[in-house]
């Protein structure tokens, strides 16, 4: 609140355009012991995601006879924020784990693996606003890396409002000082929104604009996710045909 930074009229506090996302770097297959994994840097956010499974479900009574169970755990490292946070999962962590699961489930062919579990663990190493979107982006790449069949990739990005301006991909400062925050996850090929939350105050019109803006961001992130996967797995089928 007190450390309000100066910004020019059009540009944002970190010099970005209103519809500009932060630089993103995604690498897949970073964890040798996981079935699938990914590391993402989205601005200063650093998140590593490991996927285990499909594997036997423990405890067994929680397994579903007709489909796999997707379990997500979002967790922040004690040193990821200032001041240090307790390593015990907070209410916020629990809620994000849940919405992350809801964001990813529509994309995964869970019915292919009855009785099994697919565990997705997201560890936030450094937080800079938008850790849930970064975690979802990395989790999708990690699920693909684990060889789990999917209907589409899930790409995630937030939009929001600060100083009466609608902006894409909010940084930490914009997240905390802004008027509203709308995190969205989207399956670009299927055109479906799988994560939708909002905090702050927006008119219905502004809200719909934010969703569209966030979807634009998701479409761009989708390409970055594809590139990260192509880097490891080579050409896609269409490109081979060409």
């Amino acid at each position, binding site marked *: 609140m007190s450390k309000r930074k100066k910004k020019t009229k059009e540009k944002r506090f970190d010099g970005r355009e209103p519809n500009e996302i932060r630089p993103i770097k995604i690498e897949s297959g970073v964890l040798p012991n996981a079935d699938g994994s990914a590391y993402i840097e989205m601005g200063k956010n650093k998140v590593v995601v490991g996927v285990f499974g499909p594997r036997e479900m423990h405890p067994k009574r929680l397994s579903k006879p007709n489909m796999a169970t997707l379990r997500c755990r979002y967790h922040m490292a004690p040193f990821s924020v200032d001041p240090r946070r307790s390593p015990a999962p907070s209410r916020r962590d629990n809620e994000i784990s849940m919405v992350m699961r809801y964001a990813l489930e529509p994309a995964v062919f869970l019915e292919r693996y009855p009785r099994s579990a697919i565990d997705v663990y997201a560890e936030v190493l450094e937080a800079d606003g938008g850790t849930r979107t970064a975690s979802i982006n990395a989790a999708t790449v990690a699920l693909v890396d684990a060889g789990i069949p999917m209907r589409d990739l899930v790409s995630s990005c937030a939009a929001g409002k600060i100083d009466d301006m609608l902006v894409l991909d909010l940084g930490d400062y914009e997240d905390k000082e802004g008027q509203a925050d709308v995190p969205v996850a989207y399956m670009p090929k299927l055109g*479906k929104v799988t994560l939708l939350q909002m905090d702050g*105050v927006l008119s219905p019109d502004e809200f719909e604009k934010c969703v569209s803006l966030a979807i634009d961001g998701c479409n761009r992130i989708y390409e970055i996710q594809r590139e990260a996967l192509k880097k490891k797995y080579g050409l896609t089928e269409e490109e081979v045909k060409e």
Partner: protein
Amino acid sequence: MASRGGIVSRLKRKKIQEVVAEGKRMDGRGLEDYREFVVKTGVMEKSEGSAEVKLGKTWVVAGVKVGVGTPFEDTPEMGVLMCNAEFTPVAHPTFEPGPPDEESIELARVVDRGLRSAEILDFKKLALVPGKLVYLVHVDLYVLNYDGNLIDASALAAIAALKTAVKPVHKVKEGEIEATGKKESLEVLKEPVAVTMVKIGDSLIVDPSADEEEVMDLRLTITLEKDGSICTIQKSGSEGLTMEDIQKAVKIASEKAAENRKLIAGKADA
């Protein structure tokens, strides 16, 4: 809420889906009709504010306790408002005693975000010795019977309880506080109203019952203020929404929030 253990039989599930596809509901309501709701305030004497909401068979009691304590590190000059939700085991055969599960955490956090985003209290006024001592306002939501749509019932109970709540007046002398024994209103400034919808097949239906929540594809809660602005949104459930769904939901929520606001005001006068 989202899958409470497959209590709805397969036949009933199919029936609900068919009926909704025809634009009707099992209990005879229209797709965008709320169940009858009853709001009672001042139901408990020992809490600083309380309310009971019955929405159809869903029954939620909210209690407000006001104490004094240290502020959050990142907002040292502001009072604290905290929501907590408890799914009591008496509320449904599938509710078990134990630590809060993700459903009750979500309920508490969605109600909490609605109150906070709308800035229903002047949090600066709730600081006694800024940086050291502030009022801590706890809203505890107690679910006593579950028949769907806990979020709307709880949000309504929370607001109603806060509106009747009082805080103890303290005298501040050189950074120390002294109780005066007097009490004054908490001064609720806003009245956010939550509207929850679920999608079953291609239809969005308002105020879902427990059975409807069991078979839903997804759930969407939109909380609105009096001027029509949106202050919280939460999507739950394992399906995706199209942009058209979102636009339609915003429209329905805006209409329903305005209607419910009138009903609530009418009931408060009576």
